[in-house]
């Protein structure tokens, strides 16, 4: 029951966001391909495409500000517009991380060959998949799907910590590997951030669908789970969990 005019603009905003999501997802996937195939050409593709992601962010911000100023959106419409701005911001960062990975690849292929750790490949697989599922959950308005993304962030953090340890060991063993080791560590860090941003997008999708924020509740959630598990009468009883 909203204005057709308004509805047209909302559809346009939604469409721009979906297009931007596609660009960001492609950037990450291409950057990972560049990494695993050690291809400079593919890495340059990622760098060349980044301008269109930046332009999409500006277009979405513009649309969103105009909708807020001119249409007095309410309820779900209001949530869609506010999260559109946040998701656009997150996707722009995702694009930047893809560029960082691509730049590292260009630098790496000039140096001595150092195999990409299987842990980094696994991280790349999980992070790109988290991003795809997060964006899918936005397109479908599916909060359960979004929640499934959030749960997987811990695994990526764990892999990043492992990479740090593994690469540090390699570098201590053979100082000639410090350059390549640092490069891979940077890639690992970028992938970890991409997973974080996918998590942000997912949290925003839950807010869009359910109207309540689930951000910064990790410890609450763990406490609540603990309380559920411990039956009758331990200290962490449900009465103490706010």
């Amino acid at each position: 029951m909203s204005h057709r005019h308004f509805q047209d603009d909302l559809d346009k905003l939604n469409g721009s966001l979906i297009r931007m999501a596609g660009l960001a997802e492609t950037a990450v996937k291409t950057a990972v391909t560049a990494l695993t195939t050690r291809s400079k050409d593919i890495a340059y593709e990622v760098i060349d495409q980044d301008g269109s992601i930046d332009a999409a962010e500006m277009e979405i911000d513009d649309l969103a500000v105009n909708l807020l100023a001119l249409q007095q959106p309410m309820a779900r419409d209001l949530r869609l517009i506010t999260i559109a701005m946040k998701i656009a911001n997150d996707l722009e960062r995702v694009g930047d991380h893809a560029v960082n990975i691509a730049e590292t690849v260009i630098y790496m292929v000039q140096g001595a060959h150092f195999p990409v750790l299987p842990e980094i490949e696994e991280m790349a697989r999980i992070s790109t998949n988290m991003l795809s599922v997060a964006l899918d959950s936005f397109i479908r308005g599916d909060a359960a799907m979004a929640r499934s993304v959030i749960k997987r962030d811990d695994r990526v953090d764990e892999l990043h910590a492992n990479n740090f340890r593994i690469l540090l060991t390699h570098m201590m063993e053979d100082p000639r590997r410090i350059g390549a080791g640092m490069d891979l560590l940077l890639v690992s860090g970028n992938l970890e951030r991409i997973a974080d941003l996918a998590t942000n997008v997912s949290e925003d999708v839950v807010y869009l669908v359910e109207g309540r924020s689930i951000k910064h509740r990790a410890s609450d959630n763990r406490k609540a789970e603990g309380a559920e598990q411990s039956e009758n009468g331990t200290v962490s009883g449900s009465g103490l969990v706010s």
Partner: protein
Amino acid sequence: MSEAIRNPAGPVELEARELSVLYGETRALKYVSLKIPDRQVVSFIGPSGCGKSTLLRCFNRMNDLIPGVKIEGEALFQGRNLYGTGVDAVDVRRRIGMVFQKPNPFPKSIYDNVVFGPKINGYKGDFSELVERSLRQAALWEEVKDRLEANALSLSGGQQQRLCIARALAVEPEVLLMDEPASALDPIATQKIEDLIYDLKQDYTVVIVTHSMQQAARVSDHTAFLYMGEVVEYGPTNELFTNPREERTEAYITGRFG
């Protein structure tokens, strides 16, 4: 000051040039100059008594009907001064239609309301075709097609207002002036009128006076903010509401005065 008046590009349908309206000694409108583009929606906003309705009424010579009114400057329609010699006020009002704040259908059937103007003008075409077209344009046809002989006063307020719009459109005007067309209506009827305004600009130039800033923001392409008889700022609606150039506009649209 010229920075605050940003006339749109493209063909001009209506224009005010140094236009003033005096009620006796009081200058209600002070040397207003602005251009209204063809087939777009322009709204006039501002606090009560700012001159927005006075400016609107200049464009179809409605102020002529008020005793003691004096008009200075020019109001042009397609480049021709509406107040020039040899201009027929009745012809002006046929080509520049008007819809008022309160729906004012004639106490006749729906059908008779629509054909009233065309009959007076000696319309030679098919009346039932004209009635259907006008009611469709006013987004009322589906609701009344089975009871065209019913009395117009039996319609709801929102339907009556759309009937008045159909009646104004039936004489095939080029411009539609609307003076607070939705202020007497509930939100749903208001929304229908706003959707209708959006559709009408395909074929007509629409100028709307509204004391609802939100309405101006929603429906218009360009907005003029008037204060104490002057146009303080005029420009694209999205600019005026997101980044006004004048402090007084900013203060008004953010609710700090007026």
